């Protein structure tokens, strides 16, 4: 299916948000996920379905500053 991940079009065969993270080798603890402008709760990553045309944003922690 066709997805938009962080603004870029991607074709992935996945069924849940967690599948997307696994495909991309991202530790779910390290990222906040927004699906079509709604934050997805950590506990619901594995039960939140993905459908064709969905937009996903992965927000990684960013610190630093010193």
């Amino acid at each position: 299916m066709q997805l938009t991940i962080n603004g870029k079009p991607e074709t992935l065969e996945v069924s849940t948000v967690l599948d997307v993270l696994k495909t991309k080798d991202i530790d779910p603890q390290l990222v906040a996920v927004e699906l079509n402008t709604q934050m997805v709760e950590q506990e619901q990553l594995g039960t939140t379905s993905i459908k064709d045309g969905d937009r996903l944003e992965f927000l990684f922690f960013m610190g630093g500053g010193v």
Partner: protein
Amino acid sequence: MSFTEDQITRYSRHILLPEIGGKGQKKLSQAKVFIVGAGGLGCPVAYYLAAAGIGTIGLIDSDVVDFSNLQRQILHHTPDVGRSKVLSAKEKILALNPDVQVNMHEERLTSRNARDLVRQYDIIIDGVDNFPAKFLINDACFMENKPLVHGGILRFEGRAFTIIPNQSACYRCIFKNPPPAGVVPTCQEAGIIGVVAGIIGTIQATEAIKLILNIGTPLTNRILDFDARTTAFREIRVKRNPSCALCGPNPSLTELIDYEQEACQLQPSATTLTNG
């Protein structure tokens, strides 16, 4: 307070702007901004706000200047190595603009002092390097109903985000809790290209000035991410999270928390995953 002739000349390029004028400049001179961290972000923020004629700048940092800071912490000069960061910053601020009242807080921000300090200022700037402090600042600003301009930098990237309590998404609406300890590279390990601190810091200073003068649209409900490698900004639209433990309708967080952890950033990089 009325401006002297020198001050009118100093701020003339502001006063010329219809959005600022003499009235706006006076507002700036009455504003109090609290900058948490006198490092990579705090330095450019403080420097530009001082130049802009912000009346009171509060600086909190318990560190002393290290040689490794000089690549980006522009208020600290080579002879300052080993000296207090807040004192070093204060000296440069006053050399640039003696009109500024600089309050020095040579301590760490903790759950004990955060609310009392935040309460004394109009706008808060996050210029800290670790997640426990970022969450502490976010929570204290929400509890004291103070606008916060968040900033974060690492490697070639930076992020800015403005939070107006009860009106826009807070940091916890997006990131519920600090990342787990032990999976995060330290700042020293990860590195930072110095100029990114300047880019994000000046965006934070711009946001503070806009908030004080009520100009334009603040960087609320939008996370602005910058990547120096491509010189590209990416804006991620966010909104208040109804399940936010801090600012949601059923908050479970009513007290400040001191998380024990030092961290910089998390990325799905090989290093991070190996460390994790």
